[in-house]
């Protein structure tokens, strides 16, 4: 069976389990929304709220992604399904891509619901291209999902995985966070200097590297 077909079957399994546990996705959303609200309350000068809106959106998504990733592996370890996958004739690369795409889709869904709320609460405008904003969200969420899926595997069976995952993942995703926040800010403020394409290129390259590395290392980590 081809790698693509196995990856699609794995993605189908992930989406089916996510659909059956919709409360988990809403939990991730409410967690991200709570972070956005708290940053709003903690910002003393309401005049700068619009300036921190993009950063707050991505900070909320980053923190919420750790919960989502943690839960994604909790399902696998509940009754030893992860070991079952390992011993099943499935390419580990397909397991990685199936899980990572599902994690990215969950984050994109959360981001799309969170975005209008951030715009409303922080008083931001969208003066730039909505298509560019959508591209930033898709690439930014994918950039969090790929390394998160890889590091999630490492930390999922460790004691204190909730702490370990951010410790491993956050330093790696700093370039993606920087690019996503800056690109989103430029779309909010308008982009007369046309800097958004450059940030999108940074995100695309980051994704290319992380999705390739993830596929390569996942099997090795799974076996060890």
């Amino acid at each position: 069976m081809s790698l693509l077909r196995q990856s699609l079957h794995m993605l189908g399994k992930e989406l089916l389990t996510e659909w059956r546990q919709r409360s988990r996705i809403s939990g991730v959303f409410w967690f991200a929304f709570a972070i956005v609200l708290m940053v709003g309350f903690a910002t003393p000068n309401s005049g700068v709220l619009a300036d921190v809106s993009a950063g707050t959106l991505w900070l909320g998504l980053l923190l919420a992604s750790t919960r989502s990733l943690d839960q994604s592996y909790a399902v696998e370890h509940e009754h030893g399904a992860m070991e079952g996958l390992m011993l099943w004739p499935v390419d580990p690369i397909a397991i990685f891509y199936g899980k990572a795409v599902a994690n990215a889709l969950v984050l994109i869904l959360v981001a799309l619901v969170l975005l209008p709320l951030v715009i409303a609460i922080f008083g931001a405008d969208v003066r730039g291209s909505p298509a560019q904003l959508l591209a930033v969200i898709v690439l930014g969420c994918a950039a969090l999902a790929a390394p998160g899926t890889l590091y999630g595997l490492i930390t999922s069976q460790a004691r204190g995985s909730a702490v370990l995952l951010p410790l491993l993942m956050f330093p790696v995703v700093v370039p993606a966070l920087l690019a996503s926040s800056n690109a989103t800010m430029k779309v909010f403020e308008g982009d007369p200097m046309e800097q958004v394409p450059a940030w999108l290129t940074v995100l695309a390259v980051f994704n290319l590297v992380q999705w390739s590395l993830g596929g390569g290392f996942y099997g090795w980590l799974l076996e060890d």
Partner: protein
Amino acid sequence: MERGLQIRDVSRRYGRRWALVHVDLEVAAGEAWMLLGPNGSGKSTLIRCLSTELRAHHGEVLLNGENVWIHRARLRKRIAVLGHQSRIYDDLSATENLQVWARLGGYHPGLEALLERVGLDPARRDPVRTFSAGMRRRLSLARMLLKDPDLVLLDEPFTALDPAGRELLMGVIQTLQERGATLLMATHLPSVARAVCSHAMMLESGKVLYKGDTANMPSEGRVEP
């Protein structure tokens, strides 16, 4: 190519503690062996090494002449395991679980017939979360039967099964044997396993105490609870 299973001088440690020490065993194709020994004797570790879940730190395991670790990606299609854990997804139904595993493995069995065979047909659409331990065990058995295995590894397979479930399992084992599958069963119930296993290996502290016919097995009572 030699058919069956060869375990050659296999040792495995966890940290500094050796869980298996120089274990040797030759099992002909179609033979069924039970693995006996007290808790912590190395039975499950041996099963995990044979299933390619763990790598032996010393020695090698050959299935039909091929090293299982080196060729694990291919041989996993031929090795079926029924372990302590159910390896199923609680939020999916019995049918969905089998569909997921069948699609991932590229198997095309008749799922309805399989569920009927393990007695789960009436509950096939219920979420597994609502299943009893015995029903989960039956579903794990159905999952195992998706494969057409050369090597069947059973770790405490009778756990949680009622008498009807045990009878079902025995029937499945006999069918697999008739198809030529090699079988190893770790158990604390030698009197039950004797019905299908002609040979036994006893382990203690990771070392082989006895291997041979079940008829000549020494001090069986010390391992039966």
